């Protein structure tokens, strides 16, 4: 989230699209309820199904899954056409006036530089023109035909309300009603908030779905303001923490990136991470990258990381591919290239697409280790459970070891919520049986590995032998010790760079925050963005003070919000060019002539003069980007692409199938249904239900009572066409698998008309499996295709094709 959960109560308009907040985030949804009850805020829900969120909305508009970009670019087009743009904001705070290089084009669904064989782009033309002064060329009048604003205008012009209706199936009048309400928020005194979740990410163009809304929010002037923002509702408790501390195959903590094999030393690594400002006076905060990186290396390798050895740069793995995401990992496993899989805290067999492929992959392992508090399906992938897990145990040789772990309520630690708040929690119960904390298990594995390497050597034991392990009980690090390590410590006295007499931290003390980080090895810090969470003032994550001056929803004394306890990112943009709040009733911070101050921690240097320094301090431009240069694999603007399995051919780019830059593994393409397939005519989507949390709560009797059995949802029209009775049984199958389910026939799903064709939607909820207290059932991953988002490889669970027929009863 750019903002926080509590800030949603400040909004005038909530748009829930690409998510279902009431259903999947019922507790956070209370802030929508508050905004509606106290401010008269309106709620719009755009979804293929009339959801629980829709049930309390002011306006519901149906949309075909996988067409959000067409809808959002349609809204941008509407705002531009009708002059519903917060002009001053767009001119000053976005790259609208930046002139793009000659050679950049977009035609027939493809940007310049496409290589069909590689399914990838040469992105060199996706950039600004650079002037003689070394800075990007900007036309403040927005007259240059090659400036971002004019390119954007042309790019979105095709997405007329008629085209939106044709692609999305949203009736034109409903779309226009949404557009009118959204466009009202271009006023500086109105704010709209975007609440989205996996309904946007789980697509082959998930990142671009989110970008499209971010661009709309920028055009409306809603980023950085109270009640506005791009608010990602994170699914798992602490999944925000997972991304923050870099639990991805290509990341290091704090959104630093792992080196690749073309970067043999620290200089080569830093050469692409210098982030020199693209405009005069800009902060371009990533210029401090080296401080964050060196401090991380010091946290990892302690005294073994020295200036002489590039701070142990060689200890880091170097990527030979963009990343070893889960799809790649399981594809490699499928090819027999992975022998051992340590599965910690997730349920791969239910969570990854194309279950048959996952089963086959796990069957090729020599050893599978599962660390989990629950008896997961993954740990029992080799057990036969009839149709629900139809395997032959005698043909599977994988050894499986289960390490029972504690659950969140059984240990101390912090959880980072969607709003970037690190909230400390205390153990509320004693672990059952032999369950151990994950930290204990990891420490025990590490110490044993270290012993083995010490005794037996190995190709390169140094990174293991020299891993800094400073815990009082090496076999059982505490949550506090790890939190302090993440916060960072001064290894020598750290003084203020501007005033060396001022000591920021004495040697050995915890650092006050990331501003004290140094790149000479005098500081250590496990995750720079978390610095400040546990400093000499104490455990700031454990703070529970509800003080909130003037009830702005900031709650600066509650827990710790990264970065620097800031509650609204880009909050400098809540004020105009002169530093006065765009909306006096919505003040966040203001410029008093000498410095920035207000209700939140300023997201800018406190003395950075308005008019000189832009609000988007992480970007070398100082402004936000409507055009992302070469930073995304599939284009500097979002464009509508159909899902890989689509009931119609792409109306704006008929020759392009799926997202042209999305990676597809050999063999998986053959398992996709053709566009507009007669064999698989129905558009399916998967989703969560409020009664359950993923695959966990089916282990709890009370939740199992609330939603006991797997079902699929279809419209009355499709039921009539296929002779399916309410409460009857159906079989649903895709090119990859088949499930049997109870049929829920509902008015909440209606057939859509897309490109002149009737499109029926089949809804498939996700919570069942073959372990737990609920009835045995299937997961939608029996059906879903093995393809992910072009940028971050989140699997395309939200749009695929199936067929359906009534059956007499369960097979199993």
């Amino acid at each position, binding site marked *: 989230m750019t903002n926080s959960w509590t800030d949603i109560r400040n909004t005038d308009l909530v748009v829930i699209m690409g998510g279902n907040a009431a259903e999947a985030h019922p507790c956070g949804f209370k802030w929508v309820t508050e905004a509606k009850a106290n401010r008269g805020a309106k709620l719009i829900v755009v979804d293929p199904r009339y959801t629980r969120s829709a*049930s309390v909305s*002011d306006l519901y508009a149906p949309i075909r899954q996988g067409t959000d970009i067409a809808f959002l670019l349609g809204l941008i087009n509407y705002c531009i056409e009708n002059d519903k743009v917060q002009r001053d904001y767009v001119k000053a705070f976005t790259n609208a006036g930046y002139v793009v290089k000659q050679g950049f084009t977009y035609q027939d669904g493809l940007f310049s530089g496409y290589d069909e064989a590689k399914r990838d782009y040469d992105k060199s033309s996706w950039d600004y023109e650079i002037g003689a002064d070394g800075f990007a060329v900007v036309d403040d009048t927005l007259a240059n035909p090659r400036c971002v604003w004019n390119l954007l205008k042309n790019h979105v012009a095709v997405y007329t309300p008629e085209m939106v209706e044709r692609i999305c199936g949203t009736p034109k009048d409903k779309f226009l009603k949404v557009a009118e309400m959204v466009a009202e928020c271009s006023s500086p005194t109105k704010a709209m908030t975007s609440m989205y979740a996996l309904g946007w990410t789980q697509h082959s163009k998930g990142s671009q779905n989110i970008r499209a809304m971010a661009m709309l929010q920028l055009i409306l002037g809603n980023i950085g303001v109270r009640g506005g923002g791009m608010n990602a509702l994170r699914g798992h408790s602490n999944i925000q923490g997972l991304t923050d501390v870099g639990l991805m195959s290509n990341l290091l903590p704090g959104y630093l990136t792992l080196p690749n094999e073309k970067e043999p030393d620290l200089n080569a690594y830093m050469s692409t991470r210098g982030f020199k400002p693209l405009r005069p006076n800009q902060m371009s905060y990533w210029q401090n990258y080296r401080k964050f990186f060196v401090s991380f290396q010091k946290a990892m390798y302690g005294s073994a990381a020295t200036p002489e050895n590039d701070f142990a740069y060689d200890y880091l793995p170097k990527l030979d591919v963009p990343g070893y995401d889960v799809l790649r990992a399981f594809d490699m496993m499928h090819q027999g290239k992975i022998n051992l899989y340590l599965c910690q805290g997730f349920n791969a067999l239910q969570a990854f697409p194309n279950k048959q492929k996952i089963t086959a992959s796990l069957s090729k392992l020599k050893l599978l280790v599962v660390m989990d508090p629950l008896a997961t399906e993954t740990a029992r992938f080799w057990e036969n459970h009839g149709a629900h897990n139809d395997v032959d145990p005698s043909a599977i040789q994988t050894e499986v070891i289960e390490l029972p772990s504690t659950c969140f309520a059984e240990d101390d630690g912090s959880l980072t919520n969607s709003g970037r708040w690190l909230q400390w929690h205390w153990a509320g119960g004693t672990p059952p049986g032999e369950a151990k904390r994950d930290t204990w298990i990891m420490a025990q594995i590490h110490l044993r590995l270290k012993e083995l390497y010490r005794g037996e050597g190995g190709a390169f034991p140094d990174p293991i032998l020299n891993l800094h392990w400073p815990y009082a009980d090496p076999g059982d690090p505490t949550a506090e010790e790890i939190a302090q390590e993440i916060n960072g410590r001064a290894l020598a006295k750290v003084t203020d760079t501007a005033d060396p007499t001022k000591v920021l931290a004495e040697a050995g003390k915890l650092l006050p925050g990331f501003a004290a980080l140094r790149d000479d090895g005098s500081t250590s810090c496990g995750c720079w963005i978390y610095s400040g969470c546990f400093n000499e003032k104490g455990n700031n994550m454990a703070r529970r003070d509800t003080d909130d001056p003037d009830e702005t929803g900031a709650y600066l004394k509650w827990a710790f919000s990264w970065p620097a306890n800031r509650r609204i990112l880009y909050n400098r943009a809540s004020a105009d060019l002169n530093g006065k709040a765009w909306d006096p009733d919505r003040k966040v911070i203001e410029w008093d002539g000498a410095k920035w101050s207000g209700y939140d921690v300023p997201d800018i240097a406190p003395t950075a003069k308005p008019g000189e320094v832009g609000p988007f301090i992480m970007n070398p431009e100082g402004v936000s980007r409507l055009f992302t240069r070469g930073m995304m694999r599939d284009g500097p603007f979002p464009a509508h692409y159909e899902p890989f399995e689509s009931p119609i051919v792409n109306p704006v780019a008929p020759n392009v199938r799926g997202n042209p830059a999305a990676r597809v593994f050999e063999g998986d393409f053959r398992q996709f249904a053709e566009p507009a397939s007669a064999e698989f005519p129905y558009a399916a989507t998967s989703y969560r239900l409020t009664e359950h949390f993923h695959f966990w709560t089916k282990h709890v009797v*009370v939740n199992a009572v609330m939603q006991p059995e797997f079902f699929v949802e279809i419209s009355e029209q499709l039921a009539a066409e296929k002779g399916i009775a309410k409460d009857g049984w159906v079989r649903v199958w895709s090119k990859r698998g088949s499930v049997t389910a109870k049929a829920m026939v509902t008015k*909440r799903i209606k057939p859509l008309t897309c490109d002149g064709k009737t499109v029926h939607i089949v809804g498939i909820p996700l919570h069942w499996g073959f372990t737990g207290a609920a009835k045995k059932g299937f997961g939608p991953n029996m059906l879903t295709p093995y393809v992910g988002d072009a940028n971050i490889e989140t699997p395309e669970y939200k749009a695929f094709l199936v067929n359906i027929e009534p059956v007499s009863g369960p097979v199993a």
Partner: protein
Amino acid sequence: MFPPIANPSVTDVAPRFSEKDLVRRSASTVPAPAERLTEVAKLIDVSKCIGCKACQTACIEWNDTHPEVGVNAGVYENPPDLTPDMFTLMRFSEWENPETNNLEWLIRKDGCMHCEDPGCLKACPAPGAIVQYSNGIVDFVHENCIGCGYCIKGCPFNIPRISRVDHTAYKCTLCSDRVAVGQGPACAKACPTQAIVFGTKEEMKQHAEGRITDLKARGYANAGLYDPPGVGGTHVMYVLHHADQPELYSGLPKEPRISPLVEAWKGITKYAGLTVLGVAAGVGLLHHLVMGPNRVSDTDEENAERLVRSDRHDSA
């Protein structure tokens, strides 16, 4: 935000109401209490409810009931109906509004309404099995219940259910045990959107006013409070977007009133019935004297054993 009720104290507190605060007791009379407690009420704002069923789970956990894991019956209601182990139930109703052509998904939390004029209590023949406190809470006292099921017939909302395990009637207690120590009902505590709030009946009516104004501003011209006078008003009230058509909400009765048969039962029928009972008892005694006592055969024992087993199974 409606101010939430503070967490309970960890020290013991004396109950705020007890037997001395009874205003009604089934099949018996009670002395009028010295003073009437402030009337309490639970307000369920249907327009804020997202149907998450947190109230249902909280109800199960607080009351420590053990409903069985059922099946999906092609609907969102789970279990499909109120049971002796499920005192409250989200009911979902899909309605296409003919005036707007828009679909509305009307979700209502069903359960005991705690009528000011309680039909269950009036119909109950077992002394002290159903009581009403002066704060408005209608409670079942299980050790006095004979499991006759008359309370179901007496209830205009079809709420109580008879357990096949202990053969007594169950329904929502309005968490009388929690309210007695200054807490609100478990369902209200669990509700994430404050669709359920609890306080004095006056406070609830005032809170409802604000909600109704908001709904009217959003185009629900007939938004209103459901506090039906036919049963003397209720201590569980609803805010409805379509207060003119409560039956849209899974059959919430428009004008609930106690069945005339129950009213009659309390009148002349009661005395006529007692006469019949007296005669029957006399005949029974005569039969015993002439024929001797009944004997329980081995077959009877087996049948009884089987019945108990099946009950346990059903309610596991």
